[in-house]
């Protein structure tokens, strides 16, 4: 090409294939939205009426019934937090083995990695509420079902992210330990653990924060905690009590988030 030709050449950020792929995605997004709007069953009158109805609901909720807090909310709220904590702890205990099995550098057996990944994906795909429904059917209504639901769903999240943290661990210390003739428990405790501990604690804190939110809804399907109080108040149309429960939930969730942020800064 002549220098003149190079100067006049048009530069583009993406290759034609990349541009085609991008426009394909845009087209698919627009098509999905249009198809959804056309087929989803929404009654237009309800849409137009919605702001007025929501306003009416908020008026009925005001003012929140503060007197309901000591008698109906406090104990249930603590129960929810306990469910989240014990559920997270149980979840960790079950997630760790799967995390080690799923990490390709820790377990150099392809079929075991694959099996562990399958377990983790299934646990992550089944919502906490579905687990709660299953465990309520097995253990009866109450906090036990809720705790197990939280624990089983957490396996997927904790196990997958823990395995990812293990896979990026530096092989140097591990080789050094192996060369010194260390047995595999020592390799894990002194080789892998110090490298993944910060990531592990960050994951645990993050999951606990999520689990506090999740434990709050479990009561709706009878699995214990504050959700049961909310469900009762809703079914009896006691809107000021509903409002108080919501205020309490908001407070707990915000406090949990602040606490997690603070602890994370302290230990990592």
């Amino acid at each position, binding site marked *: 090409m002549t220098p003149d030709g190079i100067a006049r050449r048009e530069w583009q950020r993406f290759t034609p294939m990349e541009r085609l792929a991008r426009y394909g995605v845009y087209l698919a997004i627009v098509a999905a939205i249009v198809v*959804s709007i056309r087929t989803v069953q929404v009654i237009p009158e309800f*849409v137009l009426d919605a702001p007025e*109805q929501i306003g009416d609901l908020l008026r009925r909720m005001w003012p929140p019934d503060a007197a309901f807090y000591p008698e109906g909310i406090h104990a249930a709220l603590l129960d929810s937090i306990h469910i989240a904590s014990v559920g997270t702890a149980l979840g960790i205990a079950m997630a760790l083995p799967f995390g080690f099995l799923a990490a390709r550098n820790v377990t150099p057996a392809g079929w075991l990695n694959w099996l562990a990944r399958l377990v983790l994906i299934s646990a992550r795909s089944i*919502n906490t509420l579905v687990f709660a429904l*299953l465990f309520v059917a097995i*253990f009866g209504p109450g906090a*036990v079902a809720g705790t197990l639901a939280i624990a089983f769903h957490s396996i997927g999240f904790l196990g997958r992210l823990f395995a990812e943290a293990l896979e990026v661990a530096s092989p140097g210390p591990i080789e050094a330990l192996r060369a010194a003739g260390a047995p595999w428990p020592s390799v894990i405790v002194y080789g892998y653990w110090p490298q993944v501990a910060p990531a592990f604690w960050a994951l645990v804190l993050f999951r606990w924060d999520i689990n506090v939110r999740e434990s709050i809804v479990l009561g709706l399907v009878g699995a214990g905690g504050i959700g049961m109080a909310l469900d009762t108040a809703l079914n009896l149309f006691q809107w000021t009590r509903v409002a108080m429960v919501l205020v309490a939930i908001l407070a707990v969730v915000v406090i949990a988030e602040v606490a997690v942020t603070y602890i994370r800064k302290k230990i990592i």
Partner: protein
Amino acid sequence: MSPIPAAQHRAIAFPANWPVRLGWTALVLYLLYALSHLELTPARFLAGLEFGRNFLLKLLPPDFARWELLLKGLEESLEMAVLASALGVALALPVSLLAARNLMPGWVTWPARMLMVVCRSFHPVIVAILFVKAVGFGALAGILALTVASLGFLGKLFTEAIEEISLKQVEAIRATGAPFMSVISYGVLPQVFARFIGFASYELDANLRNSTMVGIVGAGGVGGTLFAAFQRFDYDFVCAIILSIIALIIAGEVLTNAVKKVFRA
């Protein structure tokens, strides 16, 4: 300088860390206390295992005989997730621009941040209950509930992305005398676009998961079918529904990963 005594000189590889040990003890004590509150006794657990075995036997084999009902529910869940994600992105864009501390003064960012915190604090299912009471049963309540959740999460992620941009390009565009909208569209958005696509596809994924659940409280989607089957003790249909939900979620994950690859997000 006085010589250091030999005993002090030798460093211990893993020294005892008393604050950490204290923290561990407190954590274990709290967990034991919480456990005692939840009445999780071994006897109850063993009784449950027996029930669990019977229950699992009732779940199998999955019964796909009513696949038309199942498909209708899944389709509605998918539509709800798509619409809620689209609405969520549309609302989160302006709110996150208002909440970004590097672009806006403090009195604007605080209300925007408060709005996002409130949206994020409530589980979509709880928001769905309120919308069911406000606008009636059906997909609309679900879409609105998922939109609120999306606004909370996308708003937070978008705001963090905007706050990490390089201000040099923004200043360069301001220096040319460009109006506010041009600063946003030429100075800010090109820097965050790929990350926004990544977050939005993550949110679509999350909405898909939650859209299969809000039906439990009557807000449309396959969750209603699932809850009804549970209440009728129709466990082989329950199993079929759960398996299809898992398939839908995994398909959604594969799809959003493909989109992320196209945009290198």
